[in-house]
C-alpha cells in the first residue's frame, strides 16, 4: 500500500458555542458546568405552548464571525430539522438551512493556503446525555440521563469546503479558526469543554479521479486527535480501496485511547429531516447600519496581528505562537518603548505563557536592553523576567538585588579553568570529543558563579581550551 498514490480530501464542520449571556431563544443562562437542569425554562425544555424569541447577541456574534471569515452576511431564516432524540426537547432542532446568516467565505492559514468556507449558520445546541452502565458508552448503556442545561445554547456551525489536503492543514485550520473565535470574542472555543467541536469529512481519491466516498469522523476532542484521526482514516481507507473494497458512507468515532476510528451510524439511508421554515420565528435581515456597528466592533484578527508583529520583529515561526498566546500587543508596546525586538520575541515565545502576569511593557523593554548590551546574560534575564511576571518591578533593581552584575572576561575564564581542574577525568573525555560532558562543565561553572555566567560564553571557552 502506498499513500503516495492517493490524495486526501477533508472538509471540516465546526460547531462553536457562542459566548452569549443567555441561550439562543430564551433568557436562561448560557453557562457551563452548572447543576443539572437548573438553567431551564418552558422554552428550552420545549414545553407545550412555549415559543422562541431570538437573542440579539447571538445574531451579532454570528455576523461578527462571518465578517472575520470574509463571508457574505445576508438575510436569513430559521428552519426546523426534524428527528427524534432525547437530548433535543422539541424533537426538532431549530437551525438554518437554505438561507444561512453567513455564506461563501474564506479562511487563510498561517502558511498562506486558503480554505473556502461554505457557510457559518446559527442553530441551537442539544442537552447533554450521560450513559449509565456498560462503561458509560452509548451502545452498552443500560439507560441514560439527560440534562437540558445545554439545550438551546447558541451555536454557530462553520462548514468548510473540501479544500483541505493534509492532516497538518486540517490541524492548522482548526487552530486558526479557534484563534479567530477567541480573538473575536464569539466563543471561548475550548475543545476540551466541548464549546468547540470538530467533525471531519474524510475521503481519499486518486489525483485526476472524482472524490471518493467520505466518512464523517466525530468525537475529536483536540487538535492533536484531529490529526491522528485523519492519518488513521487515510490508512484505513487506502487499505480498503487498494484491496478492491468500497468505502461505506458512515459516521465514525475517534477512539483516542485505541488510536483508531470505529463505525457509527451508516449514512446509506439518508435521514429525512423534513426541513421547513420555523413558523414561530421571523426572518433576520440585519440592515447596513446594524452591520456597520458590528463591523466597527471587530477586533484585530490573528492573521493581521501576525503580519504586524512579523513586520516589527523580523520574526517568523515564533510570531504565530506569540499571537496565539495573546502577547503580541505587549511585545509591540515594549518595542515602542525602545526594547530589543529580537530579545522580546524570544522571551515572549519561550519564557512567557498566555498570561504575562505583572509584567508590563516598559520593564520588559528595559530587560531586553540590559540583555542586548550584555549587562545581563540570557540566563540572568530569564530569572529577572520570571520575577517581573510574578511581582513586577524594575529589571535593573532586581538584577542588582540578585547580584547579577555582568561578569568580567577574566573572572569567567578563571571559573572555567577552575571547573576543568576540578574534574580532570571529565576534561579528558571532553578533549577526546565527548560533547556529552559539555553540560556537566557548564553546570559546574553556573554553580560556582551563581548563574552569572553566560552559558554560550562558557561553551566557547571550553572549546577554546580544548583546541589549545
Amino acid at each position, binding site marked *: 500500500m502506498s499513500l503516495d498514490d492517493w490524495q486526501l480530501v477533508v472538509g471540516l464542520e465546526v460547531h462553536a458555542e457562542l459566548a452569549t449571556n443567555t441561550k439562543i431563544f430564551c433568557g436562561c443562562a448560557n453557562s457551563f458546568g452548572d447543576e443539572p437542569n437548573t438553567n431551564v425554562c418552558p422554552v428550552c425544555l*420545549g*414545553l*407545550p405552548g412555549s*415559543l*422562541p424569541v431570538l437573542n440579539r447577541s447571538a445574531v451579532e456574534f454570528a455576523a461578527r464571525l462571518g465578517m472575520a471569515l470574509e463571508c457574505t452576511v445576508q438575510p436569513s431564516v430559521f428552519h426546523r430539522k426534524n428527528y427524534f432524540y432525547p437530548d433535543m426537547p*422539541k424533537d426538532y432542532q431549530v437551525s438554518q438551512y437554505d438561507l444561512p446568516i453567513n455564506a461563501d467565505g474564506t479562511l487563510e492559514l498561517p502558511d498562506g493556503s486558503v480554505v473556502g468556507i461554505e457557510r457559518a449558520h446559527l442553530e441551537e445546541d442539544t442537552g447533554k446525555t450521560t450513559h449509565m452502565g456498560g462503561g458509560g458508552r452509548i451502545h452498552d448503556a443500560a439507560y441514560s440521563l439527560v440534562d437540558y442545561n445545554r439545550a438551546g445554547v447558541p451555536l454557530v456551525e462553520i462548514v468548510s469546503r473540501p479544500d483541505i489536503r493534509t492532516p497538518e492543514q486540517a490541524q492548522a485550520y482548526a487552530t486558526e479558526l479557534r484563534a479567530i473565535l477567541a480573538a473575536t470574542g464569539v466563543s471561548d472555543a475550548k475543545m476540551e469543554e466541548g464549546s468547540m467541536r470538530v467533525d471531519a469529512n474524510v475521503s481519499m481519491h486518486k489525483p485526476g479521479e472524482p472524490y471518493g466516498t467520505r466518512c464523517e469522523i466525530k468525537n475529536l476532542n483536540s487538535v492533536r486527535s484531529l490529526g491522528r484521526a485523519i492519518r488513521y482514516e487515510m490508512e484505513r481507507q487506502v487499505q480498503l480501496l487498494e484491496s478492491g473494497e468500497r468505502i461505506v458512507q458512515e459516521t465514525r468515532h475517534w477512539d483516542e485511547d485505541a488510536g483508531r476510528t470505529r463505525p457509527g451510524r451508516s449514512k446509506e439511508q439518508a435521514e*429525512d429531516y*423534513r*426541513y*421547513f421554515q420555523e413558523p414561530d420565528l421571523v426572518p433576520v435581515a440585519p440592515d447596513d447600519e446594524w452591520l456597520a456597528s458590528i463591523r466597527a466592533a471587530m477586533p484585530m484578527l490573528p492573521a493581521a496581528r501576525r503580519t504586524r508583529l512579523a513586520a516589527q520583529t523580523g520574526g517568523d515561526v515564533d510570531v504565530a505562537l506569540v499571537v496565539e498566546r495573546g502577547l503580541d500587543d505587549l511585545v509591540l508596546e515594549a518595542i515602542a518603548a525602545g526594547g530589543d525586538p529580537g530579545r522580546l520575541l524570544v522571551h515572549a515565545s519561550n519564557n512567557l505563557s498566555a498570561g504575562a502576569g505583572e509584567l508590563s511593557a516598559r520593564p520588559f523593554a528595559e530587560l531586553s536592553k540590559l540583555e542586548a548590551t550584555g549587562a545581563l546574560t540570557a540566563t540572568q534575564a530569564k530569572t529577572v523576567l520570571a520575577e517581573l511576571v510574578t511581582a513586577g518591578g524594575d529589571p535593573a533593581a532586581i538584577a542588582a538585588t540578585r547580584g547579577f552584575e555582568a561578569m568580567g572576561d577574566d573572572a569567567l575564564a578563571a571559573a572555567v579553568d577552575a571547573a576543568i581542574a576540578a574534574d580532570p577525568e571529565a576534561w579528558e573525555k571532553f578533549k577526546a570529543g565527548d560533547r556529552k560532558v559539555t553540560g556537566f562543565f557548564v553546570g559546574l561553572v553556573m554553580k560556582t558563579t551563581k548563574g552569572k555566567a553566560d552559558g554560550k560564553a562558557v561553551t566557547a571557552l571550553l572549546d577554546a581550551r580544548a583546541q589549545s
Partner: protein
Amino acid sequence: MTTAQQIADAVRAGERSASEVLEEHLAVIDEREGDVHAFNLVMRDEARAAAVAVDAGDRTGALAGVPVALKDNLCTRGIPTTCSSRILEGWRPPYDATVVARLAAAGAVFVGKTNLDEFAMGSSTENSAFGPTRNPHDLDRVPGGSSGGSAAAVAAGFAPLALGSDTGGSIRQPAALCGVVGLKPTYGLVSRYGLVAFASSLDQIGPFAATVADAALLLEVIAGHDPLDSTSLDRPLPPLVSGLGDGVEGLRVGVLTELVHAEGIAPDVRRRVEAAAEALADAGAKVDEASVPAASFGLSAYYLIAPAEASSNLARYDGVRYGLRVDAENTAEMNAATRTAGFGPEVKRRIMLGTYALSAGYYDAYYGKAQQVRTLIIRDFAAAYDSFDVLLCPTSPTTAFRLGDKTADPMSMYLNDVCTIPSNLAGDPAISVPFGAGDDGLPVGVQLLGPALSEATLLRTAAVLEGALQ
C-alpha cells in the same frame, strides 16, 4: 341572560358580588354539565378563591368578577392542561399562557378548562380522549369544533365568556353551531405564548361570547403585543367596544361567491347569508358580489400546511420530559409506544399526513405547492379588499350535525371548514355571528371577513346583524 359587561358593571358598582355571580354559574354547570360535557375540568375551588379576592377588592380590572372558561389547550400554571389528549393527561404546566395572565390581571374568574378535539384537530369535539361535548341546543348533535367545549359553555350559560383557538375555523364553526359569537383575530394580534401549538402559522386565540359587545370586550383584554411571541404584532389596537354602535352606513360589503357556493353549503344556510346581506343593505351598507377565486383552494392547501406544521409541533410528546410514558426496551421504542397509546386516530392521521407532505420527494408537490397557493389566497383577498371593506359568507356549511355522522370519513369532517379556512391562511380576522335558524330550528352563523386589523369594522358590522334579529 346577563352579559359579561353587565356583570362587570354590577360587580364594579358593588351591586353584586363576584361570589354570587360565580355561584349562579356553578349552579347552571351543576344542572347541565352532566349532559353537555363542556369541561375537562371545572375549577370550583380556584374560581371561588378568585371571586373572594375580587370581592375583597384584591383583584380589579375590566373583567373583575366575570366568569371565563378556557379552552384546555391554554396553559394554566399548576392546573391540568390536557388538550383532550391522553398523552398530556395530568400534566400541570409550570407557567401561564399570556392570555391567561392578562385575563387574571383583568380580574376574570376562571371557571374551568373546556373540552376540545384532541390538540384542536377536528370540527365536532368528538375527537376528545375524554368523550364528546354535546350541543346545548340539541344533545344529539355536535357543538362543532375544535373549541366545542368553549362554544357550548357559553351557549349553555356556564360562563358569559370563553376563549378558544382557531386554526382553520375552530372558534367560528362551533360558535355558529352553538348560536354564539366567535371571533378569530388577525394573526399576531393575540399572543400565542402558552397556547399548545397545532399549526403555528395559522393558530390564533380568540373570544366566544353571547353578544358582539362581550366578544369585543374580551378581545380588548387579551389583544396586544407580547415580547414572548416573536409573531406578535407590535401595533396599537384600535378601540373595539366604543365604536360598536357606529353602524354600517356606506360600508362596502361583498358577498363572497366562491364560499357562498362552495361544496356542501346547505340551502337553508345560504338563505340566512342572503338574509344577512339584505339586513346590511337595509342598514345602509353597499352590498355587492365579491370574488376571491383562490379561496376555493383553501381547504386543500390547509390540509397540507396544517398537518405539516402539526407533525413537527407534536413531535415533542415523546415520553421523556412530561406527560404519558409507555415503557419499552429502548428510547426509540418507548417514544413510539407512548405516542401510539397517547394519540387518538385523528391526531395520528394528521401527523402522518403532515410527515408525508414534508418528506423527501413530496415536499415540492405538496407542502411547497400549498405555500404557493397560500400566496395566491393572500393576493386574491387583498384584491377583493380594494373594493370591499367586509366580505360575507357562511361560517359552516350546515347547522349542527348528529354525533357520529362524520366520524367515519375524515374528508366529510374536513369539509366543515371550507368557509373558515381561507382567513387562517391569509392571517386575516373573521367573525361568526348568529343569524337566525336553519330549517331544523338549529342556529346558523354568518361569517364576516376583513383585512388585517379590521376587527373594529367586523365587530360593528356584526353588531348590526345582531340588532337586526331583535
